[in-house]
């Protein structure tokens, strides 16, 4: 079973629209995982039924039992995150500020502080309109640990793919270069980098590729809005050559790209010309990864 991960470094490059199109082409041979949990949008194109949902708990958060508290202030003294303000003469924990280090509970003389695992999100297992299953999630507001939620989504997808003998897992990866994208990348067989020929797009492509390189994963690149700036597009292609990244496709700037999304459709369903570009990438990807779909 193979794992194909789509990432982009920066947002707004069309990553999710492209992933959804690949999901459409792969149909029931794939399990889909939306690991962009911070701004999970893929479900808007896949019509999921939210068939099963499960709360996801992670980390810790402190809670002060006011009946047991003798207001000695020790907890506030040791908290390095200013997460224990005094409100109406009571010491209380600010849940958005608490890092869950547990230090306050260890120094409280009356054991008034307990730690519990907060709910940081929900994970869904859905039937989607491409005849397969998608694992997706929603991160709670202000939650930390999105890396752990990403890992959870991915592992569920892998387990299911193995159980159902699917050919591959297709992952809509997280943005950025931090912990969530590291979780998205680990174990990948192939990475698709979606970029655009802008100064910032190239900058972010280089940064995120450093990470891909560390993992030693083979990569390909789709340049979206490829005709927006020829000079930068050339720089992008030069970079791809230097790093031995396969150029999968160049998609021209076209408002139909966004129109498709507005109509709840993938690009391959909506516009023939743009669709061809995606199909062409998909053929290259399946060849490189060595799968038949």
């Amino acid at each position, binding site marked *: 079973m193979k794992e194909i991960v789509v990432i982009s470094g920066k947002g707004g490059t069309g990553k999710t629209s492209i992933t959804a199109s690949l999901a459409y082409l792969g149909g029931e041979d794939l399990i889909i995982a939306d690991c962009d949990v911070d701004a999970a949008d893929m479900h808007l194109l896949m019509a999921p039924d939210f068939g099963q949902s499960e709360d996801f708990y992670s980390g810790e958060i402190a809670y002060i039992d006011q009946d047991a508290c003798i207001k000695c202030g020790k907890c506030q003294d040791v908290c390095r995150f200013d997460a224990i303000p005094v409100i109406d003469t009571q010491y209380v924990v600010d849940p958005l500020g608490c890092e869950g280090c547990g230090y306050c509970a260890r120094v409280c003389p009356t054991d008034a502080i307990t730690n519990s695992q907060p709910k940081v999100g929900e994970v869904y297992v859905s039937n989607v309109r491409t005849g397969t299953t998608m694992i997706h999630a929603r991160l709670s*507001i*202000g939650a930390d640990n999105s890396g752990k939620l990403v890992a959870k989504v991915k592992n569920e997808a892998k387990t299911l793919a193995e159980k159902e003998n699917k050919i591959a897992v297709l992952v809509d990866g997280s943005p950025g270069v931090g912990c969530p994208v590291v979780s998205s990348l680990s174990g990948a067989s192939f990475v698709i980098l979606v970029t655009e020929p802008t100064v910032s797009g190239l900058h972010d492509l280089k940064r995120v590729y450093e990470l891909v390189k560390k993992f030693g994963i083979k990569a390909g690149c789709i340049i979206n809005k490829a005709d927006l700036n020829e000079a930068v597009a050339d720089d992008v292609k030069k970079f791809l050559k230097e790093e031995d990244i396969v150029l999968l496709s160049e998609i021209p700037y076209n408002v139909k790209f966004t129109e498709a999304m507005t109509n709840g459709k993938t690009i391959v369903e909506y516009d023939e010309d743009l669709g061809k570009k995606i199909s062409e990438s998909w053929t290259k990807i399946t060849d490189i990864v060595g799968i038949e779909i």
Partner: protein
Amino acid sequence: MKIAIASGKGGTGKTTLSTNLASYIAESRICVLSDLDVEEPNSGLFIKAELIHKEDKFKMIPEWEKSKCELCGNCQAVCNFNAVLKMGKMIMVFPELCHGCYACSELCPTDSLPMKQKKMGELKSYKNGNLNFIESKLIIGEEQAVPLIKQTIAYVDDNFGEDVIKIFDSPPGTSCPVIEATRDADFVILVTEPTPFGLHDLKLAVETVKQMRIPFGVVINRHGIGNDSVELYCKEENIAIITTIPNDRLIAETYSQGKLLYPTIPSVKEAVISISEYIENINSQKEGETK
């Protein structure tokens, strides 16, 4: 006066708006632009200014001093992040995992884990006339953005007075880093696009700022593409739409060159003018209240 510019997801034009707005305001008064997207600061690509100051930013992590250690294992027991481990006759600290809570250090019976500084990133300050640009960048592999965001805001607070307009380009998303970047703001501008993705992410962002009880308004970017669902949503929820920026290939091209937009594109200039007037309005109201 602190304005945070945020969006539920990346790529909606947050950085474009921050850089253009700050540069425009700086034509007539002192303005600070601070890029708090410390994982991937991008604003600097659009700002031409001179580097005037640079400093390393540190976080505190424990360092093991072998001589007095009794190998009691208490440090490992109190660390909630598995960042300190007892391995045989050694105590190992994993700096990337450490949140700097001081528990192991202060609860060590023999003071064998004093807290020491470790570099987590770099802050740079640039200046061009009235425009001050402050940018921080995490070193690669460093996972915690929040402490660096905090220190960057503190730097801006220490160096610029209350009367200066401060614009913070926040990281994308709705998790800890965004909360940290926006929690002290007087006003939040949410940038979105009029598409289903834009609407979905805007709703999450609205929930986030509402939870923090900060006044906010919306700027719709790439207006004309997609549909009117974002506008309808804002009307229903009584959310102010400060202005719109049209969808225009010329804007995308100018942006792709790493250039500011408002000097050459009239529609963008109009938009930044209306936003800056909106901000001036809030600012004078705020000053009125404190007087």
